């Protein structure tokens, strides 16, 4: 169980929005993480450098913050490796097929009031809520 943290959520969200806005204003690109990661995996010579640089920035951010005394992320992962692999495969395949994830559809697309992105965001949120409901309250697991 985690508690509601509105202040850090608002500050963090503002930073995320700033990064999304800057990537469009400076480079003219959508800051959808699945789009950037999936794009990097197609190795387009003209796009690859900025895509890799963005991804390096994502990983480096908590490390730099840690060097300044901030705690590193501490995600609780499933103990079953099969669940981790299946979850990763579904996330990779699904976000590419759908053309976006929480950032690409949920943020960039919704900020453009794109009907596609509003539909996709509604679907993956409701689906994920159903999965968590089934695991926690029907099956009674702790995944």
């Amino acid at each position, binding site marked *: 169980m985690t508690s509601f943290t509105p202040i850090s959520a608002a500050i963090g969200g503002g930073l995320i929005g700033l990064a999304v806005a800057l990537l469009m204003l400076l480079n003219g690109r959508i800051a959808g993480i699945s789009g950037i990661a999936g794009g990097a995996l197609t190795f387009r010579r003209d796009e690859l450098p900025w895509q890799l640089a963005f991804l390096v920035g994502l990983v480096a951010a908590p490390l730099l913050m840690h060097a300044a005394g901030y705690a590193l992320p501490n995600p609780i992962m499933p103990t079953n490796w099969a669940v981790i692999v299946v979850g990763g495969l579904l996330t990779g395949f699904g976000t590419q097929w759908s053309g976006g994830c929480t950032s690409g559809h949920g943020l960039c697309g919704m900020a453009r009031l794109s009907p*596609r992105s509003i539909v996709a965001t509604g679907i993956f949120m409701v689906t994920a809520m159903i999965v968590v409901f089934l695991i926690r309250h029907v099956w009674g697991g702790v995944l």
Partner: protein
Amino acid sequence: MIRAVAALVCGLIFGAGLTVSQMTETQKIKGFLDITGYWDPSLVVVMAAALIVTFAGYWLARRQTAPVFSARALWPTAKDIDVPLVGGAVLFGVGWGLIGFCPGPAIVDLSTGMPTVIVFIAAMAVGMIANNLLRRHERGSLAAEPAE
């Protein structure tokens, strides 16, 4: 080169935002998804704050003749609500609910060096490549159709 530097800065800010808001913690995401349990609405505040800033930034970007470091802005053009959009969103939703990871936080959490996170990212990359290959194959077979 300058585009890569700009992207690096954007990635750093994005990663800092996910870290500060604790969206890097799978238990925090599941706390949001667990609407019938002990619900943690923090993700709603993250999205709302991010959307307000993005909306303002995109409003400005629409008024630029060109982005600062690039010839033109690439805005998405797809309009159809089709099977890939819906099917992909369902598959991603199942993965999101199982682990509590969407692609951004998962990549940020590579900073922990946790083997579970590395395996998740490897599987995610395989899933992405598989879909890319599948779509290329579909396009290829379409192109191979003889013209009427």
